[in-house]
């Protein structure tokens, strides 16, 4: 009885605490939209290129949270949704609040068992706040050190997830501590030198302090010299000076996560931007031979001061917006002088417009229209509406890809992510084209599905990647000529191969389920579409593959090296050539070509993605983590389709007498 009462009491207490517990969204104070807008296009150099802070926030949040936005439980609508820049503003300027956000996605609760975090009442896959993990972070880092030494391919799932969690926790902590130097200030108490230098101010900011770096350092050296002459006894002034300099180095030194400050000079001479830590080091410890202590970094120091002022005015939203705007203006001016700002606002817009997600919606809408066209088949307007319905999302993809080309100053395809966009775009463009000329609604329906699937896969790949999808390229890929010729043509070949496989599905499923069996023209039309798509693909695959060889000859000195990626491209060409020769030789008719096209789709998937997983060869720069299950599912479905095709062939094979008659007719 007593035991039951105890259980009830504990349960009641838990329930009460759950009901009354403060949730992160309850008292969340949103940032002024103007502040968010200004912060979004603050230029930053990260990953070797200049980008908006919004892009940094977007991919950091994706890595932590597995999503491009963050839902905070609580608030008037039961949840508050934060966009990436809002979230990063919290992490940078209100780190204590950000530590309560449940933004660490843990895929498997065994990871929490491994590091000793309580997770009762949570799902196996759930999100946690930094405060939930804080007591176990030391253990997390220890395990990271241990598991990080294991070859990635040999790590268990839990070990891999521990390593990833430690990585993102570290990333978060670096961001959360980035502005510590601006929050705390530097006390001048106890040092007459500091009081004199800073005109009696009790506390000064980092930029103010570094503004007199030369005098500060000279005073410290003199003080330590006196200390040496005086038998080693430290004067209070020397002690206080030493403490301040130590704090400057510690707080400034840890602010090395984001390079906000463009240096003076051209991008050729000074390509690397400066983090706050770089500004501290450059000002305090100038390189030998430099004329001025802080002359070349005056403007960076001013900008650092504006950032400090913004941190200091957090309590007053209007003042904060003004100070943040001033800081942003200083950076924009510096970056603009080097010609490095022009594309930053465009990149913010590119992500804000979210063209590929919108395209996905329109592709699905286009598919719905195709379904409606089946129900009201007699309406004459469909032949105009359906291609237009597919053209809209295709145009969005084309615009999105073009924007990426402008932002990167690159041809459309230079990463695996971009191959997905390009394959989807080309596939649907070809489908629009086919539909205009065939008007059978088959191409447009397939195009809609093809495009929607492509956009879905691109989105999933971006999530898996969790990294900027506009990265810098390794030296061998740094050639727009070969990217524009070889990579583009070979990717068009992929698109055509996959579209052929998609068309083949219609043929085989139609035969299997007995759709329009009497309408021979329908199947002949699909057969012609198949032939045309394979022929189209063959031209691009063959030319693209040979161009790849020629590029290899220019870069590595050999035309063909039987490298897995080269072999994959060759395999696509071989299957396409075999299909066309089989057709010409009379070995394959429409049914056989449809079956072979399904196989072609599998070969394209193998060449496009799977060879990168083999871990050998020269083309190992594509990130493919987590791809194998998707590929295996695809192969499984296609193998199943081949099985269904075989059943369809068995069911629909002509009776022997009819076959003989057909053969005799053919001879006559």
């Amino acid at each position, binding site marked *: 009885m007593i035991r039951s009462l105890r259980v009830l009491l504990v349960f009641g207490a838990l329930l009460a605490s759950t009901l009354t517990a403060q949730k992160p969204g309850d008292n969340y104070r949103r940032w002024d939209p103007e502040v968010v807008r200004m912060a979004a296009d603050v230029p930053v150099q990260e990953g*070797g290129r200049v980008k908006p802070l919004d892009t940094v926030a977007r991919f950091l949040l994706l890595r932590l949270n597995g999503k491009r936005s963050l839902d905070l439980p609580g608030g008037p609508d039961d949840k508050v949704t934060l966009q990436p820049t809002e979230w990063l503003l919290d992490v940078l300027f209100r780190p204590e609040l950000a530590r309560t956000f449940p933004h660490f996605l843990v895929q498997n609760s065994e990871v929490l068992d491994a590091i000793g975090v309580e997770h009762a009442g949570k799902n196996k896959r759930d999100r946690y706040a930094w405060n939930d993990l804080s007591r176990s972070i030391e253990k997390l880092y220890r395990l990271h050190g241990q598991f990080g030494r294991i070859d990635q391919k040999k790590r268990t799932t839990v070990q891999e997830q521990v390593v990833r969690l430690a990585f993102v926790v570290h990333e978060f902590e670096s961001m959360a501590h980035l502005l510590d130097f601006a929050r705390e200030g530097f006390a001048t108490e106890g040092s007459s030198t500091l009081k004199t230098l800073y005109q009696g101010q009790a506390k000064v900011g980092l930029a103010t302090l570094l503004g007199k770096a030369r005098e500060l350092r000279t005073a410290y050296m003199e003080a330590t010299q006196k200390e040496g002459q005086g038998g080693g006894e430290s004067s209070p002034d020397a002690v206080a000076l030493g403490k301040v300099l130590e704090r400057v180095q510690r707080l400034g030194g840890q602010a090395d996560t984001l390079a906000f400050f463009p240096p003076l000079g051209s991008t050729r001479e000074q390509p*690397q931007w400066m983090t706050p830590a770089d500004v501290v080091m450059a000002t305090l410890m100038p390189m030998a031979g430099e004329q001025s202590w802080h002359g070349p970094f005056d403007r960076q120091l001013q900008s650092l001061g504006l950032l400090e002022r913004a941190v200091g005015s957090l309590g007053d939203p209007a003042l904060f917006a003004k100070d943040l705007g001033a800081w942003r203006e200083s950076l924009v001016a510096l970056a603009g002088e080097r010609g490095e700002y022009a594309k930053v606002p465009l990149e913010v817009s590119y992500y804000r417009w979210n063209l590929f997600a919108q395209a996905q919606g329109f592709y699905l809408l286009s598919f719905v229209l195709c379904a409606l066209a089946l129900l009201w088949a007699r309406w004459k307007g469909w032949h105009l509406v359906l291609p237009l319905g597919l053209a809209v999302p295709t145009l969005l993809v084309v615009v999105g890809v073009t924007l990426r080309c402008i932002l990167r100053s690159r041809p459309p395809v230079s990463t695996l992510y971009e191959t997905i966009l390009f394959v989807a775009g080309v596939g649907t463009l070809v489908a629009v084209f086919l539909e205009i000329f065939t008007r059978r609604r088959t191409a447009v329906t397939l195009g809609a599905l093809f495009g929607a699937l492509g956009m879905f896969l691109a989105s999933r790949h971006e999530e898996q990647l969790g990294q900027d999808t506009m990265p810098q390229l390794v030296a061998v890929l740094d050639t727009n000529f070969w990217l524009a010729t070889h990579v583009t043509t070979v990717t068009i070949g992929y698109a055509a191969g996959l579209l052929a496989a998609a068309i083949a599905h219609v043929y085989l499923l139609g035969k299997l389920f007995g759709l329009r069996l009497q309408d021979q023209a329908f199947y002949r039309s699909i057969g012609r579409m198949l032939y045309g798509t394979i022929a189209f693909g063959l031209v691009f695959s063959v030319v693209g593959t040979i161009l790849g060889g020629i590029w290899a000859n220019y870069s590595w000195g050999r035309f063909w090296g039987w490298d897995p990626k080269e072999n994959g491209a060759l395999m696509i060409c071989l299957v396409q050539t075999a299909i066309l020769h089989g057709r010409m030789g009379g070995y394959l008719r429409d049914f056989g070509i449809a079956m072979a096209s399904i196989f072609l789709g599998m070969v394209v998937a193998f060449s496009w993605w799977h060879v990168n997983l083999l871990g050998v060869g020269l083309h190992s720069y594509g990130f493919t983590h987590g791809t194998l299950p998707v590929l295996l599912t695809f192969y499984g479905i296609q193998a199943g389709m081949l099985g269904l095709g075989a059943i369809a062939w068995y069911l629909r094979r002509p009776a022997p007498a009819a076959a003989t008659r057909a053969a005799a007719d053919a001879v006559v």
Partner: protein
Amino acid sequence: MRPFLNRLSTLFASHGLACALLIVLFVLTYVGTIAQIDLGLHEAQKRYFDAFFVATPIGPMLEPFGIHLPEFFDRLRLPLPGGQLVLILLGLNLIWGGIVRMRQGVATAGILVAHIGLVWMFVAGGVEYLYSDKGALSVYEGDTKSTFVDHYAWEIAIQERVADGKVRELVVPAERFDRLHPQQKAIFHHDSLPFVLEVTRFVRNSQPSVATSATPAGVPVVDGFYLREIEPSTTAESNTAGVYVRLMDKETRTVTPGILWGMPMGDRMEYLPWTVTSGKRQIDLVLRKKTYPLPFAIRLTKFSKENHPGITMARAFSSKVVKIEGENETGVLISMNEPLRHKGYTLFQSSWFPQDEAYRGPVASVFSVVRNPADQWPLYSCLIIAVGLVFHFGRKLLRFLRAEMQRTAEGGVS
């Protein structure tokens, strides 16, 4: 005889043979790709694509799909024609069926042109395979080199300094001794040498080790050392060969055993010789990668590596070199995708060492060197193939579009 020849001609011109060979080449390419996981690229290329026949294990075929067949299948082998045989047959089929016996007219003109382009590409491949030399040239800043070394092949060089500081060199290529059975030996004489060279054993990838009681039985031991065999690396160019030799003095008949190990060492990564003395003569023996002369010399003035800002990924690397031919010196910049082509040789910027970002000492630039008489042929064949295919399929597309437009104009939409 004539009916047989006719049947053979028909067979070689047939689409059936083309399809069969394309399928076989597809299977071969697939298994040759999978084999690279265990064998590495070079060994897989040799076994699958440079061979006439291949017997490939069935076990690993499905491993990329996560399907591990029982061990029994590792012992089962699927016999296939090797890459060389398939490509020769495909070439014959292409010439006979796709050019000589193909119906000729406007309808097939594009295909004919594409086939001619393909044949040219096959020929380019054959010329490259038979007549090209490929290797690497590594040179430190300030140094000059006029030779390059093979990626894989080894040789023993016997060197003697003669008048005017010149070096006389005799070379024994490794293909003369790299397949010896344990009881066999290869003997090399030369009138100019005071000794006879006996090679008793070649180890493809090795590490000299101190002989102990655990040293495998039957392994030769020289001065307390033996060559420990190491599993050949999947990156074949990183294997370090070793060889056991015996020198028999022609006059005294005394035999001196030795080990040559092909590991470049020292600050400048040079092959260190084994020096033997015979009377007043000092002769060096070196096991080294097969070395080819260049018809000109290269002096590296400056190697530059440029990273993307803020990260350690190389954006570009290039070498300023001086090309030296007799008295003529010409400055040239070699960078990625911008090789130096001269006198039939092409030098490509390939790598550099040491690659430690913090290293501030002398840097060596590494160039891939190729002599390939068919260097540009694939480019020309690609253009021809593209023209042929575009003409053929473009023509078909136009006919298709015309027919479809006519059909829709007649109200044939269903």
